[in-house]
């Protein structure tokens, strides 16, 4: 029986640029960051949730030959590959924080639904990110 999701991978075009975005802008923290030969194992995670890590994977050697890497890069850039969904306790505050940090690529500003309030943005490479502030049980039945 599986007990827990530990690591999920997303493709990015550049690990360092991904780190700048996911940590400095979005507010995640670094999970693992070590280099073995020419390969850098780099993960980020939500502060307070240490057991789920997002592996930031970059197309190219040693994982892919150049032709494969090129195909992947084109797919990333047209938004056809990865996506992430996060929860927050205040999506409107986060929206303002992200704007203040220079994030402009919002696909949807915060909107209220019966299940909560959400917004959408893209990372610098084209990956979709959704953020949801779930309606609490008390608020949902009020």
């Amino acid at each position: 029986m599986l007990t827990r999701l530990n690591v999920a991978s997303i493709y990015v075009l550049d690990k360092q640029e991904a780190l700048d975005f996911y940590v400095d802008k979005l507010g995640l923290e670094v999970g693992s960051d070590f280099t073995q030969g020419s390969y850098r194992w780099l993960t980020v995670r939500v502060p307070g949730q240490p057991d789920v890590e997002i592996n930031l994977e970059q197309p190219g050697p040693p994982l892919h030959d150049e032709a494969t890497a090129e195909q992947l890069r084109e797919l990333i850039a047209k938004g056809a590959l990865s996506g992430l969904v996060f929860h927050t306790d205040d999506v409107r505050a986060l929206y303002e924080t992200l704007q203040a940090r220079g994030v402009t690529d919002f696909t949807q500003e915060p909107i209220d639904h019966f299940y909560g309030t959400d917004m959408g943005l893209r990372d610098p490479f084209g990956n979709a990110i959704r953020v949801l502030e779930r309606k609490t049980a008390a608020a949902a039945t009020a």
Partner: protein
Amino acid sequence: MSREVEDLNRRLLRARDAMDRAYAEPLDVRAVAAVAYVSEAHFIRSFRAVFGETPHRYLQRRRVERSMFLLRETDRSITDICFDVGFMSLGTFSRTFREIIGETPSSYREGHGPMVAPNCVQMWAMRPRVAAATATPAESATQSSSFGEAGAAAAPLA
């Protein structure tokens, strides 16, 4: 070479996102092309190559998807819904809906109730499918400066 392709794809995606955001506004293809920093003709051609359908067709199907959402989830009149999602005439809306979905908006409404799925999932998954080969020559024409339904005032796209 590859960097150029990635960069163009990313900008086309940004333009597509702009259509997903502003589908309810009267959109001008020139304004959407400007989001991608390309000329109108280049935009239509490259959008089709990258996403498999013309920008016009993409937007039409986004509008139809949003109208299906409103037909399922609300009691608004079909005329109101037509304008809510960016069509400029009821005739165009009804004809486009029938062409794409195969039934009228009112018969679709009768057959479908609210869906148990977050809005983002519905937008992601419910836009009607199209095969690239079915886009008509008229839709791929590069002379048109509008999306057909758009009025004179094009919405500004940030």
